[in-house]
């Protein structure tokens, strides 16, 4: 069953196409990444799905509810971290949480208090609960905004750049939280980011968008394979000579050998890394090579991504 499904979802601002006929599906319990450069249309897409702005064309459903017809139901089951923290600066952290808890229907006083306390403690903000949000640092505001998005335990979460403004330690806390929410608590998460690291570590599937259009969809591994081609073999030797290079080239499946003499390193492009590697190593050894290390290299998702975005 899919939690989010869009069909030709489009948004124009005047004649400008901010989101251009996007169709995708996020399955229940999945972490789905929207990856793209600034202005790609990530925030606009999430805003349409959270019923914050209307779509110009196309349709979408969230948790089985149509975003046009059942917007109140959609808002009830969605927790959203907006691009701006969107917090009331004159109110304290607790007052902010309290307002949103009630707005999302947590009416039982004790339950509400426990939930807010639990979240504020998790994000290490409980000590500061009675301070006005205006006095908070950027990262603290970001954490409070994430806490707010979770207050009603929504089955579907939209997170627009959750690690923006966070230090490495806090980023890790958020990443671990996202992992836990999806794996243990089966939340469905739609994540906007231009952080490749986040996309790679967290997402089951990623859709790269650029100028409002979908460029490619797949798991991080699939994307790497599709965009940047097959992995290559890297061999480092103690001694490197022409005889060894010739011997490698004689192996049938080897397509190309890049030689880095200064480091005695070979980058070997071949058809099927897994099955051919033993044969390549054997040919090196027979030719008198002394192997220090052998490993497969994958182009990083970042290289793949940059290549793709530049091509567009």
């Amino acid at each position, binding site marked *: 069953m899919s939690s989010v499904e869009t069909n030709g979802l489009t948004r124009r*601002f005047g004649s400008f196409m901010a989101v251009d006929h996007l169709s995708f599906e996020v399955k229940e319990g999945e972490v789905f990444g929207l990856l793209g450069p600034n202005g790609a249309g990530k925030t606009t897409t999430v*805003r349409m799905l*959270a*019923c*914050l*702005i*209307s779509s110009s064309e196309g349709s979408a459903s969230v948790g089985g509810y149509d975003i046009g017809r059942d917007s*109140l*139901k959609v*808002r*009830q089951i*969605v927790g*959203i971290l*907006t*691009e*701006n923290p*969107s*917090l*009331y*600066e*004159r*109110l304290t952290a607790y*007052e902010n949480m309290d*307002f*949103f808890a*009630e*707005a*999302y*229907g947590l009416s039982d006083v004790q339950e509400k208090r426990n939930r807010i306390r639990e979240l504020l403690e998790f994000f290490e903000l409980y000590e500061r609960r009675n301070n006005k949000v205006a006095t908070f640092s950027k990262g603290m505001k970001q954490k409070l*905004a994430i806490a*707010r998005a979770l207050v009603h335990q929504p089955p579907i979460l939209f997170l627009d750049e959750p690690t923006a403004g966070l230090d490495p330690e806090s980023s890790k806390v958020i990443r671990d939280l996202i992992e836990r929410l999806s794996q243990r608590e089966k939340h469905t998460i739609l994540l906007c980011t231009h952080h490749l690291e986040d996309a790679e570590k967290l997402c089951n599937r990623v859709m790269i968008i650029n100028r409002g259009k979908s460029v490619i969809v797949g798991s991080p591994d699939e994307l790497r394979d599709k965009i940047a081609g097959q992995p290559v073999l890297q061999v480092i030797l103690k001694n490197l000579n022409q005889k060894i290079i010739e011997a490698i080239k004689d192996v049938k499946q080897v397509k190309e050998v890049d030689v880095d003499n200064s480091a005695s390193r070979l980058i070997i492009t071949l058809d099927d890394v897994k099955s051919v590697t033993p044969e390549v190593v054997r040919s090196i050894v027979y030719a008198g090579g002394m192997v220090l290390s052998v490993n497969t290299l994958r182009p990083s998702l970042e290289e793949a991504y940059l290549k793709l975005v530049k091509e567009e």
Partner: protein
Amino acid sequence: MRIKKAMLVFRKDWREIKRNWQVILPIIVVPIMISVFLPILLTAIPSLATTPGTPLSGFEAMIQNLPNHVQEQLAGMTEQQVMIYIMALYFFAPFFLIIPLMASSVIASDSFAGEKERKTIEALLATPISDGELFLGKMLVSFIPSMIVTSISFLVYSTVFDLLSFSIFNGTLLLPNLDWFLLIFGLAPTVALASIGLTVMISAKVKGFKEAQQISVILLIPILALVFGQATGAIIFGPIVITALIGLFVIIDLAIFRTGVKLFKREEILSKIA
């Protein structure tokens, strides 16, 4: 429509406003100054009356045209008493319809436009609070404080006036009376609600607080002129006319509220943020 949710929006906004002295101070100070200043002005009238060349003859002619029930009340009063009586009980009445309009206009202009400017609107719009509840909540934030201010102003005005006029009217306390009760607790709220409804509608459509304020001032000017011109007449004609006016404004308020909710499109608010 869940009133509880509208009250939730009200409480949240009220908490914010309470901490904002830039808003609170003008709303409270100006009305209270007016309600102290007006009765004091009256004590200057006796000296005015004895100054030759002031257009008091016109004033007397006007008194001749007043309806009978007012004439009866004036019978047997000295010229000074008549003047103070007319000014305090009739001529100053319009100010107390204008106080709630002024007090509410700042908050109502800020309602949606201010949240847009401070970038807090997005999370609010994402909540499952319906359009009607949001709209009503934002109206209450302007309405309740402005009615509190109006009531306090009325209390101050009556007290100061009674203190000053106690001896002039030989120990009779003239305020409050039925006309003024109807004015403050019937007509003032219903007139205020109409203007608040329109201002909140504008605030949801424009880009920022300043724009909302400017448009609402332009819109308020004809209402103010009307109020100023007609309020004295209404109160002179007595409780039945005031009650009829209250009824009329209740209908206008309902119409404005329904149109406001209908025209309120939350999906448009973020589209026009730039």
